[in-house]
């Protein structure tokens, strides 16, 4: 009897998980399908799900009109650059807060997070003017700095949470065995925090890859990433769904592949410490 119930539960949860998974994936699937339609087919009501004339027209046009490689390389530079810079600052910060907390640590953490509460557009003009004066408009360096700064609170918070899960006693034991600070961080803390660091890195790469406010406003051509590439396919007058879908599919493809290969690390990191 007990066995039957558990099988039924298993089936129920499997079906539920698949349903939720497919629901979440559906918009992406629909975008990919639309990218293989003609503009006329893309607006058809009722829409055709799979049985339509598959065409590469949208991709051809996107290929002919835009230099996809330039945009993609910019996205790679911006997302990896800002994440690496973020790690350099956030690992020591999170280490200090997790293992040598003071009475103000909590306040500092909340204050850092509070910077995310201001709508980005509120500081657009000051930042734009600073960038203009420093000659950073439309440069990769400028964008890397901005993306690093806006994602920094999240990196610190995530790493802090992961580091907190690591018992201080282990570090103490390492110290008693004669490990200095460098060895302690390198050989004891880091291996234990790898899943956490990996998922922080991945999440931040994804956040930086998808960031579409600053990347749209502070670039024109030379440093423009894939968000600008996608935005150029929306049209005020004229049909554009198939082309826009083709551009979106091309834009999400690299990050989708990255996510696919690193899903094990990502899931492990995100559920790290969930069960004690």
């Amino acid at each position, binding site marked *: 009897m007990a066995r039957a119930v558990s099988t039924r539960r298993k089936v129920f949860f499997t079906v539920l998980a698949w349903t939720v998974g497919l629901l979440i994936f559906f918009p992406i699937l629909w975008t990919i399908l639309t990218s293989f339609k*003609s*503009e*006329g087919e893309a*607006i*058809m*009501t009722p829409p055709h799900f799979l049985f339509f004339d598959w065409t590469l027209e949208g991709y051809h046009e996107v290929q*002919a*009109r835009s230099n996809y490689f330039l945009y993609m390389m910019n996205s790679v530079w911006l997302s990896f650059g800002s994440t690496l810079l973020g790690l350099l600052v956030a690992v020591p910060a999170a280490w200090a807060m997790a293992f040598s907390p003071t009475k103000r640590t909590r306040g500092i953490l909340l204050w850092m997070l509070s910077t995310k509460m201001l709508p980005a557009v509120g500081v*657009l*003009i000051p930042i*734009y*003017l600073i960038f*203009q004066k420093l000659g950073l*408009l*439309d440069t990769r360096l400028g964008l890397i700095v901005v993306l690093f700064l806006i994602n920094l609170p999240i990196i610190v918070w995530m790493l802090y949470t992961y580091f907190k899960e690591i018992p201080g006693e282990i570090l103490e034991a390492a110290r008693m065995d004669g490990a200095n600070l460098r060895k302690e961080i390198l050989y004891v803390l880091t291996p234990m925090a790898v899943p956490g660091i990996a998922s922080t890195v991945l999440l931040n790469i994804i956040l930086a890859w998808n960031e579409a406010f600053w990347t*749209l*406003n502070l670039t*024109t*051509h030379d440093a*423009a990433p894939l968000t*600008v590439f996608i*935005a*150029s*396919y*929306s*049209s*005020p*007058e*004229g*049909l*554009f769904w198939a082309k826009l879908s083709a551009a979106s599919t091309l834009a999400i493809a690299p990050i989708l592949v990255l996510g696919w290969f690193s899903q094990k690390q990502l899931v492990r990191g995100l559920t790290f410490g969930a069960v004690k």
Partner: protein
Amino acid sequence: MKAKTILAGAASLLALTAYAKAETLTIATVNNGDMIRMQGLTDDFTKANPDIQLNWVTLEENVLRQKVTTDIATKGGQYDVMTIGTYEVPIWAKNGWLVSLGDLGDDYDVDDLLPPIRNALSADGTLYAAPFYGESVMTLYRKDLFDKAGVTMPEKPTWDFIKDAASKITDKNAGVYGICLRGKPGWGENMAFLGNLARDYGANYFDANWKPQFESEGWKKAIEFYVDLMKNYGPPGAASNGFNENLALFGSGKCGMWMDATVAASFVTDPKQSQVADKVGFAKAPCGEENCPNDGANWLWAWSLAIPAGSQKQDAAEKFIAWATSKHYAELVAGKEGWANVPPGTRTSLYDNPDYQKAAPFAKQTLAAINAADPSSGPDKPYNGLQYAAIPEFQGLGTAVGQIFAAAVSGQMSADQALQGAQATATREMTKAGYIK
């Protein structure tokens, strides 16, 4: 060997000098068919001007507006040529943000530009932007559905006739709706249509003292008529339909009639984008009453090219603009892609061309509509513009009011409540901005 080395060195030095001398223009533009076509034809320009390189930045309309406004207001100098509309030109020219286009070359023939478009892009008689394509408003209708219902479209329809025809054509079971009109909130979306409709009933946005007119008789008639029409004969979810949504509906045979920008005609007659390409008829935009202003053509817009005052490459930018909006460019497009693909609505000579008349069955209506449109200010109308008011505050105000009217179409409030809400919102904004003392 030595001579060869020297020669090679000299050649590379020459190439480097040429490269260093080449100027790169950054051109900000919206994504529409005509602009994209131009990007494909720029070889013609760069061959004639080898010292000028072009970088294109194509953006969605609202993003483009936000970006170029930020750039121009802060004198960022990121762009050398900008694509802007008739709304921005007079405001920006007044702020000293644009370079005047006094001299576009001897063969430019500035007098060939359609007078209403030229006026809309000028301030104090000086041209500040060159029109790339222009549009007004017209009626597009399905000839086959009209024949089936036994109705004939008059040359100059009235809105009462349109309502009657819509009731006869509507067949909701077959998925055919008598009329499709804009409902999506936005100053350039539903308010473009509603501002035009209110003018058809004799009402403006503001009176001579800048007092909003949403509670006037004209606006009342217009909104009550519009809400009733859309509820009974419009497609479901009309409050979220903008130009593109209606284009999709009309092109897939769901609409009997559609009143919108004249540029729609070229899309719905293109068999690649429209299933009803050979069944579309064209008529003038309707009037709400006898002798309505501008004969119902209460709409004028032109996507135009302008040079921001912050650009360091103004001479090269002027050369490019002169090329892109010239008669030569029209001939270039016609030679490569046919006359039907030439950007419409800017030059008289295009409409005099028999080849164009043959290729574009809607040419006559487009020209009549643009020439009838008069956006200038007058004693009762203190602002320039027809479907919009060319004041900086209109973007925010128009969008806020547009949201209220969209709520009326979706049935969240009555037409009267919407008009009261619109009046209160507009009065508050205009008082805050200092127009109403």
